[in-house]
């Protein structure tokens, strides 16, 4: 084999391995389209009996859909990069910390939206950096801004609306843009 052919093979294979293998837009779109209406519904249903039941229902639906899709994807992709592993650890840590944060805030009578927005912003920002997809980096920053607004600017009764707006600009818009690039 000619050395030039070797270089061609190496370059081709390394390029192949660097291709974005996972179709992550699905997760952002599923959660985005579940969480945005849930936040709006919470705002309008405030004070009504069992209005907070929206969240466990949305969480279960999103969780089951994500789990089934994740299983199917791992079979289809057939390879794991360091970026994939860092991304899954980041979102795993997000999930655990989010549940602790929800427990802590509700136990102390605080609104949980702030902590969820800040954590989602951090995880989205990291995902954007790893995948070199700028809309998620910007989305992560906007989620953090929404978290800051909830923490310091608006009173808790408006937090669910800020939450929906944050998820829309942080998950839905970058998710649609990523979906388009994955379909190219």
């Amino acid at each position: 084999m000619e050395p030039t052919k070797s270089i061609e093979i190496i370059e081709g294979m390394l390029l192949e391995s660097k291709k974005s293998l996972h179709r992550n837009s699905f997760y952002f779109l599923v959660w985005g389209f579940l969480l945005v209406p849930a936040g709006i519904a919470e705002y309008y249903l405030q004070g009504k009996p069992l209005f907070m039941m929206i969240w466990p229902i949305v969480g279960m639906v999103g969780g089951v859909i994500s789990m089934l899709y994740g299983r199917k994807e791992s079979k289809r992709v057939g390879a794991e990069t360091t970026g994939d592993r860092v991304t899954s650890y980041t979102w795993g840590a997000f999930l655990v910390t989010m549940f602790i944060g929800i427990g802590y805030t509700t136990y102390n009578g605080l609104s949980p939206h702030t902590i969820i927005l800040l954590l989602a912003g951090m995880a989205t920002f990291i995902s954007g950096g790893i995948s070199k997809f700028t809309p998620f980096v910007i989305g992560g920053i906007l989620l953090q801004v929404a978290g800051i607004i909830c923490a310091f600017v608006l009173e808790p009764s408006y937090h669910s609306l800020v939450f929906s707006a944050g998820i829309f600009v942080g998950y839905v818009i970058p998710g649609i843009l990523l979906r388009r690039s994955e379909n190219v």
Partner: protein
Amino acid sequence: MSKLNPLLHQELRLSIVSFLAGVETADFKKLMEVTQATKGNLSVQISKLQKAEYITIAKSFKGSYPHTNCALTPKGEKDFEIYLKELKELLNI
């Protein structure tokens, strides 16, 4: 050209090692897809790479189907880097 590592200086084996150098793990199906090799040829070559301790092969079951996962070992990574260095020297790049 003779000083290049003969184990890596073969089209399919070099493709496998190059792909594995860019990922953490890859399954048999994925390697077949990226290398365009036949099942038999791929099996033979990954066995040779395993024997040389360049890759590890983990066999498991996904549902009721057998699943083979391959990963580059530190030895494989090191020898691949040496091969690449020698190749660049040979081509003056």
